């Protein structure tokens, strides 16, 4: 009986050490279009290329020299 009580208590205590799975809930809002759909006709590569060019305008070592 004492053994069983000890087992139950230790099981109860150990349960407190467990970590519940925490996941971010699924998005429940409206769906958003891809950024390359409206102005780039769905051409992702073209859009990415435009952004890459734009990115490099921030690099004055390339812009000046």
């Amino acid at each position, binding site marked *: 009986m004492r053994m069983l009580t000890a087992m139950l208590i230790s099981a109860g205590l150990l349960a407190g050490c467990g970590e519940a799975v925490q996941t971010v809930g699924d998005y429940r809002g409206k769906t958003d*279009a891809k950024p390359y759909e409206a102005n780039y006709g769905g051409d992702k590569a073209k859009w990415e290329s435009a952004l890459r060019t734009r990115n490099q305008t921030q690099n004055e070592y390339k812009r000046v020299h």
Partner: protein
Amino acid sequence: MARMKFLCDSERCIECNGCVTACKNENETPWGIQRRRVVTLGDGLPGEKSVSVACMHCSDAPCMAVCPTDCFYRTDEGVVLHDKDQCIGCGYCFYACPFGAPQFPQEGNFGIRGKMDKCTFCAGGPEKDGSADEHQKYGGNRLAEGKLPLCAEMCSTKALLAGDADVISEIFRERALTRGKGGELWGWQQAYGKDGAPAPAPAKKEVQK
């Protein structure tokens, strides 16, 4: 494409607040809403540093984790956005965010807290791209136009960089290698003398009486 990120170079930021102005203008945010602001450490002291802060579009965003209505989503480019129609203005995201990015408009005579507003990386929101609805709720959508956030694009010293994390970190790395650090920095010795000590004052010319 990797993840979109902001990077602020504190050695270059001159606290001009151009990014703050650009953001307000592009997104036409109401009075009291500061999606971006400039924080200065050691203001007025030699070696003061300023950084421009807004939503950092965290890879594991705490605002997203605490939102009771699950109104946040992350785009394929890593931009954290939210649906204002789903937001209840509870303010949990404000407490969770380490950067103080979520902003709440004060609405009505009793200062009722409105729906959350934050930096969208100039990517609009879940409305038709380029529509009036999108602009009214979330501001401009420059990303859909193949442009980067206006705050970074118009930064006069290019302290604030925005874009693909790999690309902007490479730009910053090249810059840091070229300019050196500490006393090697351009202008430091002229301003503060060697090792941070004040530069000796120029000898005064004797005034002829």
